[in-house]
């Protein structure tokens, strides 16, 4: 009884003080977000609907959107991007799920070192890492040096190179959320499954994957969405032909080289919509799949 009344008293007396407190605490971060994050997004949307951006009083039009959406080149690029990002994502999940499983249940005292190795792999300057692949896969690179015969040309400046490099760049962000979700699984669940005669495959399919699902969806938010807009990787190891030209490169080129702000802003807004929608769906799925303890 006493504990209950103790809980109630602060709740009834507090509201006035903290309300002023929270205004003071959140004022600076929220104001900055509105000025430096929300306002630019609004300005970008405006640029996508004015006739001659950046001149804002040149009349409004949806022409940039119809131009962008009916352009065949854009469709090819979108397809390229989807194929490359999806393939990389699947490969990463195939690697990250066993890796996270090993770290969570089998690594024991190596667990923390593996975790730190993953963190380090991510922190090493990304541009430098991507560039390092160039020296490995190139005509005179280590792979062609090790393989006898004429140099293999498709290793670098190809879809293969882009997918390989994307996979190594984003593997940390794929593995760690899945690992965190698996960490929450009680190991005795597996013992129970073994006692009931479940095979390794059944344990994976019926226990591990469903319980790790929230982590997998978080990984999708953290990895799949940035990959859709990645332009550095394909710039450095992608091919000169069209096969590796990705959406991020297209938008960057429209803005910085073509100075075509209308199309750039329209494409960017479409990508913003897709990113937001994917993030929302994945987040809902992550929440739905979370087991309440």
């Amino acid at each position: 009884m006493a504990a209950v009344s103790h809980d109630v008293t602060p709740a009834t007396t507090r509201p006035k003080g903290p309300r002023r407190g929270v205004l003071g605490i959140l004022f600076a971060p929220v104001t900055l977000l509105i000025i430096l994050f929300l306002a630019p997004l609004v300005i970008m949307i405006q640029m996508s609907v004015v006739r001659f951006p950046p001149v804002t009083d040149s009349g409004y039009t949806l022409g940039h959107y119809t131009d962008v959406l009916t352009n065949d080149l854009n469709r090819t690029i979108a397809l390229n991007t989807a194929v490359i990002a999806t393939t990389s994502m699947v490969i990463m999940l195939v690697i990250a799920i066993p890796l996270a499983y090993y770290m969570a249940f089998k690594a024991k005292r190596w667990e923390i070192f593996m975790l730190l190795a993953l963190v380090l792999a991510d922190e090493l300057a990304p541009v430098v890492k991507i560039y390092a692949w160039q020296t490995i896969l190139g005509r005179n690179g280590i792979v062609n040096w090790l393989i006898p015969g004429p140099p293999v040309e498709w290793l670098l400046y190809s879809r293969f190179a882009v997918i390989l490099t994307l996979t190594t760049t984003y593997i940390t962000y794929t593995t760690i959320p899945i690992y965190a979700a698996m960490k929450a699984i009680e190991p005795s669940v597996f013992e129970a499954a073994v006692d009931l005669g479940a095979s390794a495959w059944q344990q994976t399919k019926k226990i591990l994957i469903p319980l790790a699902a929230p982590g997998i969806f978080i990984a999708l938010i953290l990895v799949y969405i940035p990959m859709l807009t990645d332009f550095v990787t394909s710039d450095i190891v992608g091919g000169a032909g069209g096969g590796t030209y990705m959406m991020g490169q297209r938008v960057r080129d429209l803005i910085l080289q073509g100075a075509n702000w209308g199309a750039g802003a329209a494409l960017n807004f479409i990508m913003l919509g897709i990113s937001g929608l994917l993030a929302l769906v994945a987040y809902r799925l992550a929440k739905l799949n979370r087991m309440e303890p």
Partner: protein
Amino acid sequence: MARGVDRGEGGLVARAVRAPAAPASATTAPRVTRRTLATWSWRAFLAFVFLVLFGPVVILIAFAFNDSTVLAFPIEGFTTRWFGEVFDDTLLRKALTNSVLIACVVTVVCVVLGTLAAFGLTRFRFRGRAVVGGLVSAPLVLPWLIIGIAALMAYAALDVDLSLGTVIATQIVCTFPLVTAIVAAQLFRFQRVQEEAAIDLGCSRIQVLRYVIMPHIGPALAAAAIFAFAWSFNNYEISLFTIGFDQTFPIWVYSSVRNPDHTAVVNAISTLISVVQVGLIALAVWLLRARGGGVHAIAGSEMAQGALKT
């Protein structure tokens, strides 16, 4: 009921007795080989993963000491002259100074802003909390390309000249939510009751902050600062769109990759930076270990982006 318990105990005892009694029976032999096979396939898998992750960096370091301007195997000979050239390159020096300057300012501002937001979101219930939470986590979910382009257009529309200042401003709003995520995760775990107890025992607000809150979130703050620094230093996307005519280190590397005369210098400076980053992470781990249990703050902060609860 009783029979069930009985059977369970009986089974345990039987297993315990049987196991040492028949160690080399024919039925256990295949199981042992299967287990060693599993162990070895795990080892091969892990070796493959970490080789792919760190192999490129090792090769990069090897080339940094290679006495040749051509990036090709086999390695020609040992030299340290590329490291000398790093310090002679004025453009590179300028880019490095810019990157360090930007990262320092961004880190300090982000730690302050991020911690404020974390306190506001975890310690208070108020109307619109979900909206504020969503606004804070949005820059972590949206790709930097989109944010960078929007920032470029906004600066142009408002006639703000691009400079290091615009890079810092846009990097701050993309980085402080990371600090918020890390610190908020720590604050969730920490009982509000302890603050109240301190107040009941006569602590002032400053004393509560100094003796109750800081020891709890200290490791998280240190981890957050290191990650904010690394994010800012490594950032290419936002810097590219908001910097104008200056260069940061990632922009310099990127523009040098296509220049064959530069590759040896790129290798050398990349080696130096990798060493610094390994040192920073080691320092963080050591600092956090000394404070106890904070290593998970580092690990947690990597995924904290997605874990921001609203």
